[in-house]
């Protein structure tokens, strides 16, 4: 897969841990047709900032259901959200307890260590 010349994604990611003042950070990501938002977030961790917190296990199969987040205001699985060569805004789920950055508590409460 080749990079399409000069096409970039401007990824605006809401960051911070529970209790912090949340902030947006912007990442300039090369665009490859057919990629997902999760691919771009994984690229950011490997190439720019490994502290960015994301959670996934199946990567591409939409089986694990762990990568649920908000992209441009809509709740999506990041592995299913198509990456586009423009500004994209990525945020944690607003209705779940925030853990850090794009990770929220999504497990059923009876499968958590500390039951809510």
């Amino acid at each position: 897969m080749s990079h399409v010349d000069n096409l970039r994604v401007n990824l605006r990611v809401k960051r911070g841990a529970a209790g912090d003042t949340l902030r947006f950070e912007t990442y300039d990501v090369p665009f490859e047709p057919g990629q997902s938002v999760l691919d771009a977030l994984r690229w950011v961790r490997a190439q720019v900032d490994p502290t960015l917190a994301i959670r996934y296990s199946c990567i591409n199969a939409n089986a694990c259901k762990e990568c649920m987040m908000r992209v441009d205001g809509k709740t999506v699985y990041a592995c299913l959200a198509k990456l586009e060569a423009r500004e994209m805004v990525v945020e944690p789920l607003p209705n779940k307890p925030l853990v850090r950055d794009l990770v929220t508590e999504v497990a059923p409460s009876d499968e958590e260590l500390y039951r809510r």
Partner: protein
Amino acid sequence: MHLTTDVLVIGAGGAGMYAALEAARHGADVLLIDRSLIGRGGATVMAQMTVAAAVGGECPDHWQHHLVDTLRAGRGLCDPALARVICEDGLECILEMDAWGVGWARKEGRFTQVMAPGHDRPRCVYVDFLNTGPAVSRTLRTQLIRTPGSIRRVGDLLVTGLETQGGECVGATALHLSTGELVTIGAAATVMATGGLTRLYRRNSASANMGGDGYSLALRAGAALLDMEFVQFFPIGHLAPRMIGMDPIMWDPFRYKLGGRLLNGNREEFVQNYGAAVSDKYIVTRDLATYAITKEVEAGRGSPNGGAYLSFEHLSAEVLREAFGPVIDRIANNGIDLTKMSIEVAPIAHYHMGGIQVDAQMRTTLARLFAAGEAVGGANGANRLSGNAITEALAFGRRAGRYAAQDALASAALRWDGARRDAHWYTQGPSRLDFNPAQMLVELQALMSDEVGPFRTEAGLQRALHRLTAMRAQVGEVPPQGTGGLDCIRIDWFDLFQMLLVAELVTRAALLRTESRGAHQREDFPGLDESWRLNQVVNMEGSKLSFERHMVPASVPIPDATELV
């Protein structure tokens, strides 16, 4: 926090969930943990289709026929007693899953079974459409929830070490990912059901959890592993065009149901040039297809992205729709019309035949530690038969749960009280790393794919070993200090700590085995060498690895299969 239980099950895929159910049925209190969500994080949930079991839906069958095929596929290295558990117990598990409502496909009341490569008859049950793994996971999780009281399920726990006392496994330490807290767990018996190691490779078909941590944890605690050189590559993993929301092994079911044509870059059939019969049926074995595709690419006859074409263009839209229903729409959403274009496929790391050494009761060589599923080595020898992975997960899980419960309920069973001898290990590390661990994981995957893939040479394996040694030195032996919940740097460090050891085991075992057999192909030692009909067993003392060659366990008596119905 300190937790205590009779039986600790690590990993909540098919093997772990079945183990938990069976241990509870035998009277044990069970703690089932996973680093991801329960029932969603392992390989089971990603299974697309085939599950081998001699249920005789299409034609008469017997588990002993299945055993003959399993042993033949294993190229002389299977432990026959373990292979027998897959075929005999697996059959019972498949029927129990049916009673639990998994929904195996049926026609007129009989199981529908497909013919998979290496089987002598149609033997693989499945759940439509491409829904086998999710259905198996959901069914087992429902049973866990229905088992009152005695099974506790906790996700988000990454096990970082097993605890031993007096040569017995007495529990584990885990990092609670969402808080960063260390959790100690005292257990009278522990079942390792953490799956395989395919995350070591760049292109793989399993989840990001499958970095081989169970192998590393077991080895470091004193259990033996075997046959670590045998990584199965699935020949026709999706390569291009890029698709989202689809598992890369999805074309396997297409071939089961529809055949399809495998073509090189010149759009010619080619597997016949490597000794396989050309057929509109899907019969070429995984190791041969992987070899044929790789050699075509090397000869300059690959598809544009470095694989082969897979074509269903000769089929009508109606035929595709009948076989795969809504999956056709998901493919169309990715801009692909299978009646008008071929897709590209290439080998992809899929499964690990090697793993933790166990006996037929799933006992490892470390007392009170059991293993189940892909974490186990030896059952599938040098090459796993299609369809045996889910069957073994269920069958091994059930056995491990039963015998772990039996051991745990014995009166003398110790449980760790959580008092740490190595507390400093978790707190004395550097406050930050001087390298990007996410980048190193990418580098590790590239290195293993390039040098320790399906085709190996001494020079390439030595290059890999050299680089792995340097990477292990950079990662060090002490984790960085934590910074709270979902600390990805610390999580990556633990993953690298385990994965780099496992990568070294695969590489060293591959260097030692100077022959080509099944999934292990040495280009400098072509052909099977009968004197290498041996298992390679590895142990670790301190930081020292020792490899030994063991005779393959003797065959179990099998009646003449032709006399069976």
